[in-house]
């Protein structure tokens, strides 16, 4: 499989002394499911946002699909962003609009200024939106206002909005941090399914180590802005968890032994 994303020496600091990322290097192959784990404030969100330049890195190369994202101008950056879907912890939907309208927002990056401003979507785009909503089990909710949905349903709308971009990669920033275990499982299963059946690369920030162990092809451990671990889930040991989270693995609320159960 070819390499889709490659980060070389990426660093980011806020102000003068708050280092968010220091010299991060890793690569992701096409179709891979990669989880990024680490304590709060470790720089997981910043790392994810540097990839689509929602946050600008201070130095380093971010090569996605053979293009250095870090060096792109405004117009090319927008074009690159259409190939990267993003999913947020708080779903970031327009609450007063219907589900279908929110999904179609994923097509705005492909539109001219006028068509985008007026929200003119083609028949084909609408059909694709309905199809994606069907796959995600939201066919009953199509015309509902987004604020009438449950958290899990909102997140599925978020996924649909990302999928309609026909992206090569999905960036998911804590997609299940605000969801109950049931909804979390549904969301993670959908993400895994997307990666497996559509061949879309998925990069997920996670708080839950056991979820990362269960779903990922590869895990990246981050602490204080540096990469601590990069490898498959079965290489994770108690010592590595301790290095990532800075505490005894025994004190954490999960069971390493169960990692192959799912």
């Amino acid at each position, binding site marked *: 499989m070819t390499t889709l994303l490659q980060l070389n020496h990426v660093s980011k600091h806020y102000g003068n002394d708050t280092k968010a990322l220091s010299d991060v290097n890793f690569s992701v192959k096409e179709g891979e499911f990669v989880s990024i784990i680490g304590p709060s404030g470790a720089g997981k969100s910043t790392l994810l946002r540097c990839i689509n330049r929602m946050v600008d890195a201070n130095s380093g190369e971010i090569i996605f699909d053979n293009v250095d994202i870090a060096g792109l101008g405004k117009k090319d950056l927008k074009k690159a962003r259409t190939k990267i*879907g993003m999913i947020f912890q708080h779903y970031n*939907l327009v609450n007063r609009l219907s589900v279908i309208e929110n999904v179609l927002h994923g097509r705005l990056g*492909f539109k001219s200024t006028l068509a*985008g*401003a007026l929200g003119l979507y083609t028949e084909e785009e609408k059909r694709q939106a309905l199809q994606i909503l069907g796959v995600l089990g939201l066919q009953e909710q199509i015309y509902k206002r987004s604020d009438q949905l449950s958290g899990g349903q909102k997140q599925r709308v978020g996924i649909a909005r990302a999928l309609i971009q026909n992206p090569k990669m999905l960036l998911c920033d804590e997609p299940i941090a605000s969801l109950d275990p049931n909804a979390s499982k549904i969301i993670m299963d959908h993400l895994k399914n997307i990666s497996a059946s559509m061949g879309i690369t998925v990069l997920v920030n996670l708080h839950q180590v056991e979820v990362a162990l269960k779903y990922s092809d590869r895990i990246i451990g981050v602490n204080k802005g540096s990469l601590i671990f990069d490898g498959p889930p079965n290489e994770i040991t108690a010592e590595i968890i301790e290095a990532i989270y800075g505490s005894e693995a025994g004190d954490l609320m999960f069971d390493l032994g169960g990692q192959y159960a799912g």
Partner: protein
Amino acid sequence: MQADVFVKKRWNSFIFLLILLVVTFVSIVITEFNMAKGLASLPKALQWGFTNFYPDEMALTKLPDILNKLRETVLISVAATTVGAIFAFLFALFGSRTTKVNGVLSKVSRGIATIFRNIDISAWSMILLFSFGQSALTGYFALFFGSFGFLTRAFIETIDEVSSSSVEALQATGAGYFSIIFQSVIPSGIPQMISWILFMIETNIRSATLVGILTGTGIGFAFDLYYKSLNYHTASLVVIVIVITILTIEYISNYVRRVIL
């Protein structure tokens, strides 16, 4: 330890009250305000109000004239607010953290709005009196400037509060600036913005009375005229008409707000 926190809190409230009392007392001394005399004159004022300040038959014959002036005032207030809102929306887009084009433009537009907001409407009407003279235009512009400044501020907060998350999502999809404004900022912010506009119309009708006194137009001028010609009965009718209008507008805008939010 815990008890100390509560003792400290009580001390803080006590000191705050003490400062308040001292400030009040010092102000009374400086302005030579006589509390007893002030209170004693209250019944007399009330008595005067009841004997002179009510509409009589003569006053009612002036009603068509008053309503005509009232219509002028209401229309000017609405026009000033709505036009002000359009400008305010543009400036708010530039000024907001979420939708700003660049930092300099954001500071400039916030700065302009602050200047317009912090000059009071009555001050605006005095300033504009020199340029436009005693005409409806003076009142219109005074209200327009005041509404523009205030609404810009209110819209900036609205945009930052309700649409920053969905704006982030649309930026991540690669959507252009205008797509983001029309598909995310306007749909999510419109109820609050309309609510602010309704509030501003209410406020402006209230201010229009004062502006009218200063600029010689509208309902404020009618009041001023009758009052100064010692026609207290008609002046009181003007006040009653204003109060009824404001209550009606408030009722309507509350209703609209309930429906859209």
